[in-house]
């Protein structure tokens, strides 16, 4: 089960880095964070899962969204 | 008890599959939101009920009730927020859908 989730994590991270729309990228990173929380949960680490959920989908998303909001959505590079 | 739990799990699976398919095939944001709300409300609710039946009475019940209540309160709000967001950012509904023109304040009967 962990292997499947890790593969999913890999795909998610790859897509998050590849997307041209920064906002979609941030959303994919949120999905990455959710799935890694699940991975930690499966590895019997509820504390780490809790922290990852709080950090990855909470503060991390808020800060990233703020920056994307301030700097524009399109990745022009 | 377990059988009832499995029944609820089955319901959850059916709604989940349908919701996912709906989100993939529907034409515009609002219709997709309908499918998503089916999936995430009904199927998640079914799963929760199933879990409650599966686990039996105990400390799990209390927390599951809290989670279910929280989900029950927040999920329609999330759907509403997404819908309102789509509406306000000017996404027009699918071409076949139409908005009723008449003002509801005229035909109020009281």
């Amino acid at each position, binding site marked *: 089960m962990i292997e499947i989730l890790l593969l999913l994590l890999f795909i998610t991270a790859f897509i998050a880095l590849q997307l041209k729309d920064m906002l979609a990228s941030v959303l994919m990173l949120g999905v990455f964070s959710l799935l890694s929380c699940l991975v930690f949960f499966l590895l019997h680490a*509820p*504390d780490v*899962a*809790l*922290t990852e959920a*709080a*950090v990855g989908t*909470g*503060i991390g998303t*808020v*800060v990233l969204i*703020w920056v994307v*909001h*301030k700097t524009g959505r399109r990745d022009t590079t | 008890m377990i059988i009832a739990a499995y029944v609820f799990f089955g319901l959850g699976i059916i709604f989940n599959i349908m919701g996912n398919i709906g989100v993939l095939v529907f034409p515009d944001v609002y219709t997709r939101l309908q499918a998503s709300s089916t999936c995430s409300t009904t199927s998640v609710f079914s799963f929760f009920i199933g879990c409650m039946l599966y686990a039996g009475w105990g400390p799990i019940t209390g927390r599951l009730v809290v989670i279910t209540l929280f989900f029950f*309160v*927040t999920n329609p*709000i999330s759907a*509403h*927020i997404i819908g309102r967001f789509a509406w306000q950012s000017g996404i027009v509904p699918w071409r076949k859908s139409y908005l009723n023109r008449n003002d509801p304040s005229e035909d109020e009967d009281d």
Partner: protein
Amino acid sequence: MKKTDILELVSRKLAPFMFLFGLYLLTYGHLSPGGGFQGGVVIASGIILLSVSRGIETAEALFPSFSLSILETFCFILLLAAGLAGVFLGVGFLGNPLPRAAAAGVPRVGMILLLNILVGLKVAAGVSLICLRFFREDE
């Protein structure tokens, strides 16, 4: 007649429960998953919820930035003091000066509880300061 906003009402009713849950995570950190940081972030997310839905003013009225930064400084100083107390009580820096009980070590947990609460309040203050600043910035 006041304008009805769904989000506003729901956040009003929900935020206290989120604070409560944050405090639960803080105080039960030694019995269940959770602890200072997580509880602090949950409390801060309650403040985020308030400031997102009701505007920054409501959150500022309940939790002014100034008192949040005072809380942060105060918790930091108390954390240092808790560390120093161990030095004076002879168990070393950040040690646990409480007596070890014979069975199950119940009173011994007091130090962890104290540290959890201090860390949690500090984190809550810090994170909500950041978020309030972010939300204020674009108005």
